[in-house]
């Protein structure tokens, strides 16, 4: 079983076999409806612009499982969303990424790379963890996806080499990407 055995659908409904990405470095991300952690969308786009010519592909999988759940109190969260023009990397069909209903690809990814904790230095880490403890304690158990913008880095041979939590900004993983290109 490898990442290249999975077939998924793009947001236009076209089937895409991940084998088509052989030889590329991949960053697979569960994205959100352009709310909350929005800066990550822009940073992902920056990464894509910087590295696509050297063989990076970013694969975004929109998921509603966390969309309307707020990782903080009213003052702490931003109650608005940004229309996401300008993202040019591939976005796939909306689907679940955690629990029984998770897409097979995400079951595979989370089995390959488990949860190793949040990056505590990120400003939202503490709030996110507290909100999860309070509202969705089951999310903190096991290796399932914890929140929007969990990122999996895949090398040119299809190995899942790293998992970055929502608390790791796209910008900060540029060096990890470069190593694989």
């Amino acid at each position, binding site marked *: 079983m490898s990442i290249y055995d999975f077939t998924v659908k793009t947001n236009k409904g076209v089937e895409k076999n991940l084998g088509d990405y052989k030889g590329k470095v991949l960053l697979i991300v569960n994205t959100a*409806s*352009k*709310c909350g952690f929005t800066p990550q969308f822009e940073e992902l786009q920056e990464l894509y612009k910087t590295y696509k010519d050297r063989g990076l592909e970013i694969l975004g999988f929109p998921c509603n499982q966390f*969309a*309307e759940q707020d990782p903080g109190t009213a003052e702490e969260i*931003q*109650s*608005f*969303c*940004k*229309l996401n*023009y300008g993202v040019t990397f591939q976005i796939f069909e909306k689907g679940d990424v955690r629990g029984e209903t998770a897409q097979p690809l995400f079951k595979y990814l989370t089995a390959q790379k488990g949860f190793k904790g949040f990056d505590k230095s990120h400003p939202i880490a503490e709030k996110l963890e507290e909100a999860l403890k309070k509202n969705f304690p089951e999310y903190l158990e096991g290796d399932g996806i914890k929140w929007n913008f969990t990122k999996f880095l895949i090398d040119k041979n299809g190995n899942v080499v790293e998992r970055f939590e929502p608390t790791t900004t796209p910008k900060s993983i540029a060096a990890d990407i470069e190593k694989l290109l």
Partner: protein
Amino acid sequence: MVKVYSFESCPWCNKLKKYLTSRGVEYEVRDIELDEEAAKECQKISGDLTVPVTTVDGKNYVLGFDKAKIDALLGI
């Protein structure tokens, strides 16, 4: 007329619309994803494409689903 700049898959926009309806406020939906003209207007009002943006006169506006500010803007 109250105008709400928004797009379909924006949960905060939907919450705002529900709230306005519950308060008996009539409003015009300006979809910035489907309507380029609406996007331009929104950009002009707030300088960005973040929504919901609620406005009456196109000058004073509230960004986001902030009940207190919206109540103040609309005098409800």
